[in-house]
């Protein structure tokens, strides 16, 4: 996974193995991390559901390496990019 954050005075690049994020342990921890926010939108995530989402994501990533998930360019020149 590559995370790039760039603005006028910072240029941060973080590269780490995607498997650190997309793994079973993360799937087990995901409900505890996200459910507080998700409940505000009337949703709830279980570990089993997180496992399914992570599996789908991993399968897609295998076929599309270096796939750009998100890119944000702000008007004041900040650039954020997440690649899997």
């Amino acid at each position, binding site marked *: 996974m590559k995370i790039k954050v760039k603005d006028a005075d910072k240029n941060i690049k973080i590269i780490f193995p995607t498997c650190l994020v997309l793994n079973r342990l993360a799937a087990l921890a995901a409900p505890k991390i996200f459910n507080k926010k*998700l409940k505000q*939108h009337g*949703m709830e*995530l279980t570990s089993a*559901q997180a496992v*399914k*989402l992570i599996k*789908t*994501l991993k*399968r*897609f990533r295998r*076929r*599309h390496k270096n*796939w*750009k*998930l*998100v*890119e*944000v*360019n*702000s*008007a004041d020149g900040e*650039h954020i*990019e997440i690649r899997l």
Partner: protein
Amino acid sequence: MDITLGERISTLRRQKELTQENLAKELNVSAQAVSKWENDQTCPDISLLPELARILGVTVDELLSGKTDMREVRMAKPDEEKNPDDLILRIIVDSTDGDKVRVNLPVPLIQAAIELGITHPKPGGSEALKNIDIGRIVELVRRGARGNLVEVEEPGGDRVLITVE
């Protein structure tokens, strides 16, 4: 930052399930040349562009600009039908104050999310996306709809585009 020509060639080649060697052979160039194009170290020779575009199943204009002629929704032809697992739903949000948000979501991931009841993406905090039924969009995609499926201009001037390719 938009997708570079190299990234576009690489994505289209993979979609056509071609290796760099296969593509190189069809164009009578070396596999290293194709690798250099895809890594944006060099660009393909102008005389190769029509043939390259034909092999990748796009027009030269689409290949160079990355903008496909998708002003209207079109139905995928059986011979150009992609594996549904390779389809990407691009959510493009351009705000009037100059912020640009691009989210590329794999269709299978959205399908899985819908099954889990997650249906309200709001990239860039756009209110326009709040009322869009992503489930319907995925249903359209499953039936073969491609192109700009949703285009919304908010009263404030923000523009939201949902494209499937």
